[in-house]
């Protein structure tokens, strides 16, 4: 077995790392060059994993997983990513509510930092919690999803998946469908896709998309059909079933009839346009089971790319 460390990309013609951030709080601060450095590193991680190389980019480092909100796939993905790079992974006891346990998020992280944890992967129900974490302790913070604000590694894996399928994303059109308002995935994708020169179309019930008219590079569409028309790729979002009551649609049935993705509706998009979904899917609500399992679906690829992207992010931050 080959033991190696994947080299970190440098800016062209220099010895300066192409990645300049201590934390990954969102993707809004990333330049196109940094995005490319991350995705290129992820591709090399993916290849190395396929070959079965034993990577040691994070050898002798400790990565803490602080998941204050339920998550299965993201936590597992980060855990596999960190261990695949030779890191020791520990679960950190973070509670969703800062008041219920008497110790604030800031105090908890400040204490844990003293144990020598270099990188903390934080999932939290409150938008902005990773910013508070970054201000409170000296560890590197990776945002694994904060409230309805950002999910940077999900957006990076989405863009890697799209780049694999479509090539350069500049000038491409991506339709995002569903509950944009409550979606941290949509927000981070809006930043990334527009930075890379893609146009983003948004469609969904008015209460879920209307507020995004001001977002630069995004267009809000009254109908699903208009948003899908000629799109190069389509991204479905999970309908938060628990939010249905106060959340902008009278019923899931009405949502599915109007905004649910079917093969027939997907034919409005560019022929062969891929379909993405951050998961977990509600089949029969935001998309049909046939679409989810069909040839357009890149949902499985997204999950596989998730590990590679998280390996890239952890390595870049630690470099």
């Amino acid at each position, binding site marked *: 077995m080959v033991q190696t460390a994947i080299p970190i990309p440098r800016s062209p013609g220099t010895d300066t790392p192409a990645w300049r951030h201590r*934390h990954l*709080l*969102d993707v*809004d*601060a990333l330049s196109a060059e940094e995005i490319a450095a991350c995705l290129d590193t992820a591709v090399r991680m993916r290849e190395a994993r396929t070959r079965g190389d034993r990577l040691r980019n994070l050898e002798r480092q400790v990565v803490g997983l602080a998941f204050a909100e339920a998550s299965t796939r993201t936590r597992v993905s980060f855990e596999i990513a960190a261990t695949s790079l030779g890191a020791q992974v520990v679960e950190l006891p973070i509670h969703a*509510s*800062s*008041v219920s346990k008497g110790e*604030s*998020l*800031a105090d908890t992280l400040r204490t844990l930092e003293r144990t020598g944890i270099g990188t903390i992967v934080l999932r*939290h129900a*409150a*938008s*902005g*919690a990773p*910013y*508070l974490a*970054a*201000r*409170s302790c000296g560890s590197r913070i990776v945002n694994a999803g*904060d*409230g*309805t*604000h*950002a999910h940077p590694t999900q957006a990076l894996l989405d863009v890697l998946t799209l780049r694999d399928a479509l090539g350069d994303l500049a000038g491409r059109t991506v339709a995002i469908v569903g509950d944009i*308002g409550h979606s*941290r995935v949509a*927000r981070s994708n809006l930043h990334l896709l527009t930075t890379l020169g893609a146009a983003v179309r948004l469609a969904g019930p008015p209460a879920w998309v209307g*507020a*995004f008219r*001001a*977002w*630069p590079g995004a267009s809000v569409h009254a109908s699903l059909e208009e948003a899908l028309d000629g799109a190069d790729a389509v991204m479905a979002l999970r309908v938060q079933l628990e939010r249905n009551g106060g959340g902008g649609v009278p019923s899931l049935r009405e949502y599915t009839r109007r905004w649910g993705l079917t093969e027939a509706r997907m034919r409005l998009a560019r022929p062969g346009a891929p379909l993405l979904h951050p998961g977990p899917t509600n089949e029969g609500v935001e998309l049909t089971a046939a679409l989810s399992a069909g040839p357009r679906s890149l949902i499985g690829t997204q999950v596989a790319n998730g590990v590679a992207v998280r390996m890239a992010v952890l390595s870049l931050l630690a470099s």
Partner: protein
Amino acid sequence: MTRLGSIADPPASLLLRGARVVDPANGTDGVADLAIRDGTVVDPADLPADAIRIDAEGLLAIPALCDLHAHLREPGDEQAETIASGARAAAHGGYATVCAMPNTDPPLDEASRVAWVRSLAADAACRVRVIAAATRGRAGERLPEVMELAEQGVAGFSDDGATVASARVARALLGYLAPLGLPLIEHAEEPGLAEGTAMRAGAVATRLGLAGWPASAELAIVERDIALAAETGGWLHVTHLSTAAGLQAVRRAKAAGVRVTCDVTPHHLALTDAWVAGDRRYAWEAPDGVGPFDALDPELAYDGSCRVNPPLATRDDALALLAGVADGSVDAIASDHAPHPPERKLVEFAAASPGMVGLETALSLGLAAVAAGCLPLEALVVALAVRPAGLIGEARSLAVGAAADLVLVDPGATWRVTTDRLASASANTPLLGRELPGVVSLTLAEGRVTYAEGLPGVD
């Protein structure tokens, strides 16, 4: 040197020489000498020989400020503020009078509790007037014993922190208060629209993924209460009005002869919702349009010190409120001084307690607006001092014979907002670390030196 005094101190004899005296009550603005003796403004010829002479050239002499809305937190939350510390903050900020909000623990809904607060304030650094709770226990259901509270000299009735949610209760209170000449001081926030929110709805909230309450939440209650005031003849005072739409409603009601007044806070005049995203430009410096959508500053974004209720609004709202102060449709600038200890602010944004301290920065933010050309100085003095005093039965005049409530401020000097510099027991403000114009060098409350700094012979 800094001197912190009290309203129980003996009155000073002072001659302030050569200040620019801005005295809107008497329509004067010019360089003059001001003589103070036995708590009143006197003719300089009547000063005793040992009166302290102060060279006030280059300074501004204006009537002392009057705050209609401050949270002094005592009883119940003395770690955040006490009547004594809040009053010292007021004196440092140029105030001679502060109205204390009743959302304490227990709330100020009984005459005996009001009397207790008044006794605590007897030797404070400013006069403290009490606002009584609008409903018993601030529960929104039953009126307190209004007449007995009125006998304690309360300045009005408010469930501030929340709207009087029941229109029936608000109508009953306005009607009961009408003959007393005391206002219902309303915190206008429709509860259903504001529930579960942490900031103002709009482009910034959308960008940050934070739930926000829309401007209509304020307008719905303002319009409801205007209708109730019109029907009952009661006096409605809308406090911390934060939106252009709310101000327009107040303007229409005033024009229609309804008894309605309003105040705005310094932070709603100067700051915008973009501060939650880490932008630190004043409203008048902010560019057109919305945002920011560019990268957030990790040091400043989601800072709990920017959480306040009503939430910071848009640049257009702030500029509309400034225009309202300038044209007089806003009656007063009130601080909504809301102290909190760090542990209630250094938390996730939506978990942060709403409110910021404001007594010590109100005049400075106002002077920043004046310096930016957004507000005439006279309008600022009227809104900070003259009209709020008039609303609670005080006067602010610098004419001979008037009570010597005045402040000397150096409008050209600046000061840095630091924890050390603030007299408040709390320092929860996003202005911390910032350089602000306008250094107060002397505050007088009925001729008593309640604050002095850098004045030889006084401090």
